[in-house]
Protein backbone atom coordinates (compact mmCIF):
# COMPACT_ATOMS: atom_id res chain seq x y z
CA UNK A 1 0.00 0.00 0.00
CA UNK A 2 1.35 3.43 -0.94
CA UNK A 3 0.47 6.24 1.42
CA UNK A 4 1.28 9.89 0.93
CA UNK A 5 4.18 10.90 3.18
CA UNK A 6 3.20 14.54 3.50
CA UNK A 7 0.21 16.86 3.28
CA UNK A 8 -0.87 17.77 -0.28
CA UNK A 9 1.65 20.18 -1.77
CA UNK A 10 0.42 23.80 -1.67
CA UNK A 11 1.05 24.09 -5.42
CA UNK A 12 -1.37 21.22 -6.06
CA UNK A 13 -4.05 22.78 -3.85
CA UNK A 14 -3.44 26.15 -5.51
CA UNK A 15 -3.75 24.61 -8.98
CA UNK A 16 -7.07 22.90 -8.23
CA UNK A 17 -8.35 26.05 -6.48
CA UNK A 18 -7.41 28.19 -9.48
CA UNK A 19 -9.23 25.81 -11.82
CA UNK A 20 -12.37 26.09 -9.68
CA UNK A 21 -11.90 29.85 -9.35
CA UNK A 22 -11.92 30.20 -13.15
CA UNK A 23 -15.31 28.47 -13.25
CA UNK A 24 -16.71 31.04 -10.82
CA UNK A 25 -14.79 33.92 -12.39
CA UNK A 26 -16.64 33.55 -15.72
CA UNK A 27 -20.05 34.87 -14.53
CA UNK A 28 -18.38 37.58 -12.44
CA UNK A 29 -16.39 38.71 -15.47
CA UNK A 30 -19.52 38.57 -17.64
CA UNK A 31 -21.45 40.59 -15.06
CA UNK A 32 -18.82 43.29 -15.09
CA UNK A 33 -18.37 43.22 -18.85
CA UNK A 34 -14.74 42.11 -18.77
CA UNK A 35 -13.58 40.98 -22.19
CA UNK A 36 -12.01 37.84 -20.69
CA UNK A 37 -15.47 36.35 -20.01
CA UNK A 38 -16.14 34.80 -23.46
CA UNK A 39 -12.66 33.30 -23.52
CA UNK A 40 -13.21 31.57 -20.18
CA UNK A 41 -16.58 30.22 -21.38
CA UNK A 42 -14.92 29.13 -24.62
CA UNK A 43 -12.09 27.36 -22.80
CA UNK A 44 -14.49 25.34 -20.64
CA UNK A 45 -16.63 24.62 -23.69
CA UNK A 46 -13.97 22.02 -24.52
CA UNK A 47 -14.83 19.95 -21.47
CA UNK A 48 -18.48 20.71 -20.73
CA UNK A 49 -21.77 21.06 -22.59
CA UNK A 50 -22.57 24.27 -20.61
CA UNK A 51 -26.34 23.75 -20.96
CA UNK A 52 -27.91 26.67 -19.03
CA UNK A 53 -30.69 24.49 -17.54
CA UNK A 54 -28.01 22.26 -16.04
CA UNK A 55 -25.72 24.96 -14.73
CA UNK A 56 -25.54 27.08 -11.59
CA UNK A 57 -26.07 30.80 -11.94
CA UNK A 58 -24.27 33.57 -10.16
CA UNK A 59 -26.60 36.54 -10.48
CA UNK A 60 -27.77 36.57 -14.08
CA UNK A 61 -24.87 34.59 -15.46
CA UNK A 62 -24.18 30.87 -15.49
CA UNK A 63 -20.97 29.32 -14.23
CA UNK A 64 -18.50 28.20 -16.89
CA UNK A 65 -19.44 24.53 -16.39
CA UNK A 66 -22.54 22.45 -15.60
CA UNK A 67 -23.69 21.18 -12.18
CA UNK A 68 -21.85 17.87 -12.56
CA UNK A 69 -18.54 19.38 -13.68
CA UNK A 70 -18.79 22.00 -10.91
CA UNK A 71 -19.28 19.10 -8.47
CA UNK A 72 -16.25 17.27 -9.88
CA UNK A 73 -13.98 20.30 -9.53
CA UNK A 74 -15.35 21.16 -6.09
CA UNK A 75 -14.91 17.50 -5.08
CA UNK A 76 -11.28 17.62 -6.19
CA UNK A 77 -10.61 20.57 -3.90
CA UNK A 78 -12.68 19.14 -1.03
CA UNK A 79 -10.77 15.86 -1.39
CA UNK A 80 -7.38 17.53 -1.21
CA UNK A 81 -8.40 19.51 1.87
CA UNK A 82 -10.33 16.76 3.68
CA UNK A 83 -8.51 13.51 2.89
CA UNK A 84 -5.43 14.26 5.03
CA UNK A 85 -7.84 14.20 7.99
CA UNK A 86 -9.64 11.01 6.90
CA UNK A 87 -7.00 8.27 7.22
CA UNK A 88 -9.61 5.53 7.44
CA UNK A 89 -11.19 6.40 4.10
CA UNK A 90 -7.74 6.83 2.55
CA UNK A 91 -6.64 3.41 3.75
CA UNK A 92 -9.89 1.83 2.56
CA UNK A 93 -9.25 3.19 -0.93
CA UNK A 94 -5.55 2.43 -1.09
CA UNK A 95 -5.70 -1.16 0.12
CA UNK A 96 -7.69 -1.97 -3.02
CA UNK A 97 -7.69 1.00 -5.46
CA UNK A 98 -10.49 -0.57 -7.52
CA UNK A 99 -12.76 0.42 -4.65
CA UNK A 100 -12.80 3.88 -6.16
CA UNK A 101 -15.33 2.48 -8.64
CA UNK A 102 -17.81 2.62 -5.75
CA UNK A 103 -17.32 6.38 -5.73
CA UNK A 104 -17.90 6.58 -9.49
CA UNK A 105 -21.02 4.41 -9.37
CA UNK A 106 -23.50 7.09 -8.13
CA UNK A 107 -22.32 9.43 -10.90
CA UNK A 108 -22.74 6.73 -13.54
CA UNK A 109 -26.26 5.96 -12.30
CA UNK A 110 -27.05 9.67 -12.29
CA UNK A 111 -25.77 10.01 -15.87
CA UNK A 112 -27.89 7.02 -16.90
CA UNK A 113 -31.04 8.69 -15.55
CA UNK A 114 -31.04 12.11 -17.21
CA UNK A 115 -34.79 12.60 -16.77
CA UNK A 116 -34.73 11.83 -13.06
CA UNK A 117 -31.63 13.57 -11.81
CA UNK A 118 -31.70 16.97 -10.15
CA UNK A 119 -29.16 19.72 -9.67
CA UNK A 120 -28.15 18.39 -6.26
CA UNK A 121 -27.80 14.79 -7.50
CA UNK A 122 -25.61 15.96 -10.39
CA UNK A 123 -23.47 18.16 -8.13
CA UNK A 124 -23.36 15.68 -5.23
CA UNK A 125 -22.40 12.64 -7.30
CA UNK A 126 -19.72 14.77 -8.96
CA UNK A 127 -18.24 15.65 -5.58
CA UNK A 128 -18.21 11.99 -4.47
CA UNK A 129 -16.63 10.82 -7.75
CA UNK A 130 -13.82 13.36 -7.49
CA UNK A 131 -12.74 12.40 -3.95
CA UNK A 132 -10.59 9.37 -4.95
CA UNK A 133 -9.21 11.32 -7.92
CA UNK A 134 -7.97 13.95 -5.46
CA UNK A 135 -6.22 11.19 -3.54
CA UNK A 136 -4.56 9.93 -6.73
CA UNK A 137 -3.36 13.45 -7.57
CA UNK A 138 -2.01 13.79 -4.05
CA UNK A 139 -0.19 10.44 -4.31
CA UNK A 140 1.28 11.31 -7.70
CA UNK A 141 2.50 14.71 -6.52
CA UNK A 142 3.96 13.07 -3.42
CA UNK A 143 5.87 10.51 -5.50
CA UNK A 144 7.09 13.12 -7.98
CA UNK A 145 8.14 15.75 -5.44
CA UNK A 146 9.67 13.36 -2.91
CA UNK A 147 11.11 10.44 -4.90
CA UNK A 148 13.94 10.00 -2.41
CA UNK A 149 11.67 8.49 0.21
CA UNK A 150 11.38 5.18 -1.65
CA UNK A 151 15.01 5.35 -2.76
CA UNK A 152 16.16 5.90 0.79
CA UNK A 153 14.09 2.96 1.94
CA UNK A 154 15.62 0.80 -0.77
CA UNK A 155 19.14 1.98 0.07
CA UNK A 156 18.49 1.30 3.74
CA UNK A 157 17.18 -2.20 2.93
CA UNK A 158 20.13 -2.92 0.63
CA UNK A 159 22.52 -1.65 3.30
CA UNK A 160 20.88 -3.89 5.85
CA UNK A 161 21.14 -6.90 3.50
CA UNK A 162 24.83 -6.15 2.84
CA UNK A 163 25.50 -5.91 6.57
CA UNK A 164 23.77 -9.27 7.17
CA UNK A 165 25.89 -10.86 4.43
CA UNK A 166 29.09 -9.41 5.93
CA UNK A 167 28.14 -10.72 9.37
CA UNK A 168 27.40 -14.19 7.96
CA UNK A 169 30.70 -14.21 6.03
CA UNK A 170 32.61 -12.96 9.09
CA UNK A 171 31.10 -15.69 11.26
CA UNK A 172 32.07 -18.32 8.70
CA UNK A 173 28.51 -19.24 7.76
CA UNK A 174 28.86 -18.08 4.15
CA UNK A 175 26.26 -15.98 2.39
CA UNK A 176 22.74 -16.28 3.80
Amino acid at each position, binding site marked *: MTTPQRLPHPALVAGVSSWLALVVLAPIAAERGW*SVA*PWVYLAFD*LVCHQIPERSFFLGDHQLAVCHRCAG*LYAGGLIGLLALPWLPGFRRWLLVE*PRRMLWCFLPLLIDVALPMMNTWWSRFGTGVVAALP*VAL*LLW*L*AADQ*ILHPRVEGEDRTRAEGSRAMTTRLHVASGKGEP
Partner: protein
Amino acid sequence: MNSMLKPALIGGAVLGVLSGIPFVSLGNCACCAWVIGGGMLAAYLFNQQIGPQPATPYGPAAGLGALTGAIGAVVAFLVALPFNLLGMASGMTGLQEALRDVEGLPPEVQEAFANVGAAGVGIGMAIFGFMISLVVYVVFGMIGSLIGIALFGRK
Protein backbone atom coordinates in the same frame (compact mmCIF):
# COMPACT_ATOMS: atom_id res chain seq x y z
CA MET B 1 10.87 7.34 -20.50
CA ASN B 2 11.20 4.78 -23.28
CA SER B 3 8.64 2.53 -21.61
CA MET B 4 6.23 5.48 -21.62
CA LEU B 5 6.61 6.54 -25.23
CA LYS B 6 4.72 3.72 -26.92
CA PRO B 7 1.72 3.75 -24.54
CA ALA B 8 1.61 7.56 -24.72
CA LEU B 9 1.70 7.52 -28.52
CA ILE B 10 -1.09 4.93 -28.76
CA GLY B 11 -3.25 6.58 -26.08
CA GLY B 12 -2.59 10.04 -27.54
CA ALA B 13 -3.43 8.90 -31.06
CA VAL B 14 -6.72 7.33 -29.95
CA LEU B 15 -7.82 10.32 -27.86
CA GLY B 16 -6.61 12.76 -30.52
CA VAL B 17 -8.55 11.11 -33.35
CA LEU B 18 -11.73 10.81 -31.27
CA SER B 19 -11.40 14.40 -30.05
CA GLY B 20 -10.64 15.79 -33.49
CA ILE B 21 -13.52 14.38 -35.53
CA PRO B 22 -16.60 16.64 -35.49
CA PHE B 23 -19.60 15.27 -33.57
CA VAL B 24 -17.54 12.33 -32.24
CA SER B 25 -15.58 14.95 -30.29
CA LEU B 26 -18.77 15.80 -28.39
CA GLY B 27 -17.91 12.83 -26.17
CA ASN B 28 -15.50 15.20 -24.45
CA CYS B 29 -18.49 17.19 -23.19
CA ALA B 30 -19.07 14.28 -20.78
CA CYS B 31 -16.27 15.03 -18.32
CA CYS B 32 -13.65 14.95 -21.10
CA ALA B 33 -14.46 11.27 -21.70
CA TRP B 34 -12.15 10.71 -24.69
CA VAL B 35 -9.20 12.37 -22.96
CA ILE B 36 -9.75 10.45 -19.72
CA GLY B 37 -10.19 7.26 -21.78
CA GLY B 38 -6.97 7.91 -23.73
CA GLY B 39 -5.08 8.40 -20.47
CA MET B 40 -6.55 5.18 -19.09
CA LEU B 41 -5.59 3.27 -22.24
CA ALA B 42 -2.01 4.58 -21.99
CA ALA B 43 -1.87 3.55 -18.31
CA TYR B 44 -3.17 0.08 -19.17
CA LEU B 45 -0.50 -0.41 -21.86
CA PHE B 46 2.20 1.04 -19.60
CA ASN B 47 1.18 -1.33 -16.84
CA GLN B 48 1.34 -4.32 -19.20
CA GLN B 49 4.82 -3.23 -20.17
CA ILE B 50 6.33 -2.70 -16.72
CA GLY B 51 4.73 -5.71 -15.04
CA PRO B 52 4.07 -6.07 -11.31
CA GLN B 53 5.58 -3.35 -9.12
CA PRO B 54 6.16 -3.23 -5.35
CA ALA B 55 4.28 0.08 -5.21
CA THR B 56 1.77 1.50 -7.66
CA PRO B 57 3.70 4.02 -9.80
CA TYR B 58 1.37 7.03 -9.50
CA GLY B 59 4.17 9.53 -10.15
CA PRO B 60 5.28 7.99 -13.47
CA ALA B 61 1.60 7.53 -14.40
CA ALA B 62 1.01 11.26 -13.98
CA GLY B 63 3.91 11.98 -16.33
CA LEU B 64 2.61 9.38 -18.76
CA GLY B 65 -0.86 10.97 -18.73
CA ALA B 66 0.56 14.44 -19.30
CA LEU B 67 2.58 13.15 -22.27
CA THR B 68 -0.47 11.31 -23.62
CA GLY B 69 -2.58 14.46 -23.31
CA ALA B 70 0.04 16.59 -25.07
CA ILE B 71 0.34 14.09 -27.94
CA GLY B 72 -3.47 13.88 -28.08
CA ALA B 73 -3.82 17.66 -28.32
CA VAL B 74 -1.43 17.75 -31.30
CA VAL B 75 -3.19 14.81 -33.01
CA ALA B 76 -6.63 16.35 -32.36
CA PHE B 77 -5.44 19.67 -33.80
CA LEU B 78 -4.12 17.95 -36.94
CA VAL B 79 -7.24 15.78 -37.35
CA ALA B 80 -9.56 18.76 -36.86
CA LEU B 81 -7.53 21.06 -39.13
CA PRO B 82 -9.17 20.06 -42.45
CA PHE B 83 -12.63 20.28 -40.90
CA ASN B 84 -11.77 23.69 -39.44
CA LEU B 85 -10.41 24.98 -42.74
CA LEU B 86 -13.54 23.78 -44.55
CA GLY B 87 -15.94 25.30 -42.08
CA MET B 88 -13.99 28.22 -40.63
CA ALA B 89 -16.67 30.79 -41.45
CA SER B 90 -19.57 28.62 -40.37
CA GLY B 91 -17.57 27.57 -37.35
CA MET B 92 -17.13 31.18 -36.29
CA THR B 93 -20.83 31.78 -36.76
CA GLY B 94 -21.61 28.68 -34.74
CA LEU B 95 -19.27 29.82 -32.03
CA GLN B 96 -20.90 33.23 -31.89
CA GLU B 97 -24.31 31.57 -31.78
CA ALA B 98 -23.12 29.34 -28.98
CA LEU B 99 -21.95 32.37 -27.05
CA ARG B 100 -25.30 34.07 -27.64
CA ASP B 101 -26.85 31.05 -25.91
CA VAL B 102 -24.77 31.73 -22.81
CA GLU B 103 -27.48 33.35 -20.75
CA GLY B 104 -26.87 36.81 -19.45
CA LEU B 105 -23.70 37.53 -21.39
CA PRO B 106 -23.68 41.34 -21.74
CA PRO B 107 -24.20 42.69 -25.30
CA GLU B 108 -20.87 44.51 -25.24
CA VAL B 109 -19.05 41.22 -24.57
CA GLN B 110 -20.95 39.49 -27.36
CA GLU B 111 -20.20 42.40 -29.64
CA ALA B 112 -16.52 42.28 -28.78
CA PHE B 113 -16.46 38.62 -29.64
CA ALA B 114 -18.38 39.19 -32.88
CA ASN B 115 -15.80 41.82 -33.85
CA VAL B 116 -13.00 39.39 -33.18
CA GLY B 117 -14.67 36.99 -35.60
CA ALA B 118 -15.34 39.69 -38.15
CA ALA B 119 -11.72 40.73 -38.09
CA GLY B 120 -10.95 37.36 -39.58
CA VAL B 121 -8.59 36.03 -36.97
CA GLY B 122 -9.53 32.40 -37.56
CA ILE B 123 -5.92 31.32 -37.33
CA GLY B 124 -5.58 33.12 -34.01
CA MET B 125 -8.68 31.29 -32.80
CA ALA B 126 -7.22 27.98 -33.92
CA ILE B 127 -3.98 28.68 -32.05
CA PHE B 128 -5.91 29.83 -28.97
CA GLY B 129 -8.02 26.68 -29.15
CA PHE B 130 -4.89 24.55 -29.48
CA MET B 131 -3.22 26.21 -26.48
CA ILE B 132 -6.33 25.76 -24.35
CA SER B 133 -6.83 22.16 -25.45
CA LEU B 134 -3.16 21.44 -24.75
CA VAL B 135 -3.57 22.54 -21.12
CA VAL B 136 -6.94 20.79 -20.71
CA TYR B 137 -5.79 17.55 -22.37
CA VAL B 138 -2.60 17.42 -20.29
CA VAL B 139 -4.59 17.85 -17.06
CA PHE B 140 -7.35 15.39 -17.95
CA GLY B 141 -4.91 12.94 -19.59
CA MET B 142 -3.03 12.91 -16.29
CA ILE B 143 -6.24 12.23 -14.36
CA GLY B 144 -7.20 9.44 -16.80
CA SER B 145 -3.79 7.85 -16.50
CA LEU B 146 -3.91 7.99 -12.68
CA ILE B 147 -7.35 6.34 -12.67
CA GLY B 148 -6.04 3.77 -15.15
CA ILE B 149 -2.96 2.87 -13.11
CA ALA B 150 -5.11 2.60 -9.97
CA LEU B 151 -7.58 0.27 -11.69
CA PHE B 152 -5.16 -1.84 -13.75
CA GLY B 153 -2.07 -1.66 -11.53
CA ARG B 154 -0.57 -5.01 -10.53
CA LYS B 155 1.48 -5.60 -7.42
